[in-house]
């Protein structure tokens, strides 16, 4: 009896092993990962409110009819909270919009993309595109193994209302910070709101945008990136950052931002700016589609450097997507990520719908856009940043909660006159160290 059972068990086990372990064949080793020809359903999580991934998925299915999509969506803030459970759950996504990645990479929830990078040649793409998605073994970002890819690479800077700018005599974008200060002062004198910005805790404090731009105007970008990437010993409390924070404080005290900024949400600030309130707004090219609904009305320039002729810097981050470590169709998802950056139709959708640089190998031509569109200006600015090598990630992304627990409350205090420049940097650095100590 027991020997028969043993025998059956052994046979069953062997059968399972034979089925489960694929036979290594010489042909698959050479082949680039792809979606095959069998019907596949990609399990994806996208961010609500952003059309781009949905449109790309649609086009992908047109070109590869064997691939269908099961797309679930959620708000970005909800994704921050649900991603760990989605990745570790029973039905891990093949493709997911990643709000942050370091902790998930460390917890082994994300697929290591190094093999795909080698197969598709991603390592030869311009460095800044890929490096933000690398996580080293010690948990620092910027180097190490690849854990995500960008669907595109957003760029931030200053959008302006051309009509209002003309009213205060600004005919071309300022070339230095001093010139920009002058324009802001003129706007204030003319009774206009110089800069529209948001600051409610519900959407997070928008003043982190001008602050980081000022930081990059006063000092080099490397220490800022080191801080965001959690390099050991990195600090945000540096002498040049102090000058930047003091500059921001002067802008606040001069009344350059809306008086009710602490209660304004992101969407309201944008709506008010598009309606004509505020000469400038610090924002990213993901809003291009909205600004381009009124062609010729809005322009864009990069934060001007401190000295004339200096190179401008900008926050530029990939629209990060990753693959769950236990995803069923990882090969197909990786193929999709490569397709997005290299296929002509995909790149065109990327620019038209997303408004951002589609990335990819440096030799590929940029998709066409209308010449009077804001998108045209942001794409051109992206080239400038790419050549200068002055792209930064966002200081709000340094840790998962540094925005909610550090920048937002401390900058709100600064607006209310309850915090000064030095105190702001010290408080945020202390919160950063507390969070990293965990």
């Amino acid at each position, binding site marked *: 009896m027991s020997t028969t059972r043993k025998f059956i068990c052994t046979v069953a086990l062997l059968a399972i092993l034979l089925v489960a372990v694929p036979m290594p064949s010489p042909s698959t080793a050479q082949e680039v990962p792809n979606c095959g020809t069998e019907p596949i359903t990609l399990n994806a999580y996208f961010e609500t409110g952003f059309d781009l991934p949905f449109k790309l998925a649609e086009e992908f299915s047109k070109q590869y009819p064997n691939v269908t999509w099961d797309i679930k969506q959620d708000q970005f803030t909800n994704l921050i909270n649900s991603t*760990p459970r989605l990745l570790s759950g029973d039905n891990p996504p093949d493709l997911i919009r990643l709000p942050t990645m370091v902790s998930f990479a460390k*917890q082994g929830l994300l697929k290591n993309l190094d093999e795909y990078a080698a197969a598709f040649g991603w390592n030869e793409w311009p460095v800044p595109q890929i490096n933000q998605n690398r996580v080293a073994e010690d948990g620092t970002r910027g180097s190490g193994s690849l854990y995500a890819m960008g669907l595109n690479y957003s760029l931030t800077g200053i959008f302006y209302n051309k009509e209002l700018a003309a009213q205060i005599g600004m005919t071309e974008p300022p070339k230095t910070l001093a010139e920009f200060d002058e324009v802001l002062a003129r706007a204030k004198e003319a009774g206009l709101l110089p800069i529209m910005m948001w600051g409610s805790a519900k959407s997070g404090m928008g003043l982190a945008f001008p602050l980081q731009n000022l930081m990059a105007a006063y000092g080099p970008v490397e220490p800022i990136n080191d801080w965001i990437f959690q390099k050991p010993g990195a600090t945000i409390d540096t002498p040049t950052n102090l000058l930047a924070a003091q500059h921001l404080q002067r802008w606040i005290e001069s009344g350059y931002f809306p*008086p009710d900024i*602490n209660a304004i949400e992101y969407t309201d600030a944008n709506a008010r700016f598009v309606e004509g309130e505020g000469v400038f707004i610090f924002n990213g090219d993901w809003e291009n589609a909205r600004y381009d609904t009124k062609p010729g009305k809005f322009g864009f320039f990069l934060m001007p450097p401190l000295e004339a002729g200096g190179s401008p810097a900008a926050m530029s981050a990939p629209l990060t997507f990753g693959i769950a470590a236990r995803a069923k169709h990882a090969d197909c998802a990786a193929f999709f990520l490569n397709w997005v950056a290299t296929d002509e139709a995909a790149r065109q959708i990327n620019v038209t719908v997303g408004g951002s640089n589609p990335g990819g190998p440096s030799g590929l031509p940029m998709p066409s856009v209308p010449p009077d569109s804001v998108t045209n200006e942001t794409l051109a600015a992206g080239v400038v940043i790419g050549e200068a090598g002055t792209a930064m990630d966002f200081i709000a992304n340094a840790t*998962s909660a540094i925005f909610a627990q550090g920048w937002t409350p401390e900058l*709100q205090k600064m607006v209310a006159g*309850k915090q000064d420049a030095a105190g702001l940097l010290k408080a945020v650095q202390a919160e950063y160290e507390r969070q990293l100590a*965990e």
Partner: protein
Amino acid sequence: MVTMMMRSDDRSAAPAFSRWIALGRVIRRETLIGWLFVLPALTMYAVFVLLPFLLSVRYSFYRWDGIGPMTWVGLKNYRTVLEVPNLLETIYNAFRLVAYFSFIPVTLGLVVASVMYRVATGSFGAAARTVLFLPQVIPLVAAGIIWGWLLALPGLINEILRAVGLGSVTRAWLGDFDWALPSVGLIGIWVLLGFCTVLLWTGMTKLDPALYESARIDGAGWFTEFIKITVPLLRHEIGVCLTVTVTAALAAFDIVYVATAGGPGNATAVPGIQIYILAFTQQRIGLASALAVMLMVLVLVVILPIQRLSRETTL
């Protein structure tokens, strides 16, 4: 087993005893049926309340990111709650909210209910109660967004203030360090006043009118009646109102989250918001659980005396 043996042995010898056993069996049967009726609810309660509660207590002694291995840290999480100033500040804010969510709605509810009881009988009273109760029916998230518009700098409340010549006090109410918490409190009053009013009014309708009549014969006015008869006799209802509203204030999350998300600065940060951020944004399940356990103890410390007071029979 024991009863079975006794029954078979002593049935004829002691009929009284067997009747007692039979009665015992009926009671036991009833108890069993009673438990069977309670069982579905009890199972749900155990699975969705008791078990999570015990798990939270357990998590509070560990460092855990919600996914990986758990590390025993003893009381460290509790020490952290007491050491980090922002976390203690949230508890202070919660107590400030008690004034708005509890004392004002209960006091106002008593006054409104007694006015309704005296003057607004019939359909007018029913309409008034419905209007006051409506905030309980409207989804809070939608209400929060609308309150956000009303309290914004270009909002209706500031427009009214400007129209009556109070332009100097206009501000972004939810974005002002001094006024954000009272503004959130105002939303709380709006939500909870109807609940308190309806509950207290129902209590009043059960009071014996003869009490009021004799008081009036003795020459008591409205206020004396209110203080000497209405309030003491509604002790139980007031106790329920206080319990529900104080808990709503100390464990507040939804109203604050949709109105300010804890800002500006940490002016309206309450334990509920912090627990949410710690657990889900920062993946610090242990620390979040410790704060949650402390919040629960705090709620009990405040609620138990209220329960005791409202149950005492002597005045």
